[in-house]
């Protein structure tokens, strides 16, 4: 649906980030889907994973918490798996929750995809996330991508960052 690097605009609230990793696809895919690996890298250094419970299947969830080393504060989240093609593709939603898996509807959810492309012995991972509440997301989708849209945003971007 989304080509890398083309939809990173304020108006669509879509963020595309990609990176090539020096490891075969199966291995990189597993790093995203197995707590044993996730514990080592998902959370920021000062907010490592303190809880990890993953049920990796369509309709399953990843319930996790990151804990700030300095304060002991915890941030809970749920990842809801909507589509899985091992080891190529994951479509999921990210929501804020608590230790009891109750979803916090005050904070926005994001709809995301992860693509894993084998490139020889390396793997290109493309993460696309659309950050929007349901109402503005609907408006964004209705609006589509008009011609000349990007140029206009470039002008605005140049203006606001001057």
């Amino acid at each position, binding site marked *: 649906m989304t080509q890398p690097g083309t939809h*990173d605009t*304020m*108006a669509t*609230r879509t*963020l595309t*980030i990609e*990176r090539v*990793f*020096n*490891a075969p696809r199966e*291995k*990189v895919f597993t*790093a995203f889907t197995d707590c044993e*690996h996730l514990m*080592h*890298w*998902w959370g*920021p*250094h000062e907010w490592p994973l303190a809880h990890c419970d993953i049920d990796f299947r369509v309709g399953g969830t990843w319930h996790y918490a990151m804990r700030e080393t300095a304060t002991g504060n915890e941030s809970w989240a749920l990842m809801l798996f909507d589509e899985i093609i091992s080891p190529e593709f994951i479509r999921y939603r990210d929501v804020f929750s608590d230790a009891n898996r109750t979803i916090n509807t*005050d*904070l*926005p959810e*994001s709809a995301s995809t992860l693509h894993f492309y084998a490139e020889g012995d390396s793997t290109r*991972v493309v*993460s696309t*996330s659309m*950050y*929007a*509440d349901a*109402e*503005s997301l609907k*408006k*964004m989708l*209705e*609006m589509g991508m*008009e011609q000349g*849209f990007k140029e*206009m945003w470039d*002008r*605005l*971007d140049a*203006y*606001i*960052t001057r």
Partner: protein
Amino acid sequence: MRDSLGTTFAALADPTRRAILARLAQGEATVKELAEPFAMSLPAVSKHLRVLERAGLITHGRKAQWRPCQINAAPLKEAADYISLYRQLWEGRFDRLDTYLNSLNNEENAP
């Protein structure tokens, strides 16, 4: 912060309003000047301007139509920063994953 961001993005969702903002990014303009390229009535343009004003994206004298509208960049910057926060988050994750995968490679390659 999230509420005001929602207002900003809702205001930006309309192509006419984005075009108005793009015009105002080049300099201030009156309602009449803003209406010209759109083949819209002044009241229709005023309606869009009110949405932009409520979102804090422009400043505009409500009663005086001849008073120029001006763009206000702060909410746009906030919206841009919101995206950049997530960019930092993912760049950080990828950095750590890269380090982790390399450490696994090194373990495997160790004699």
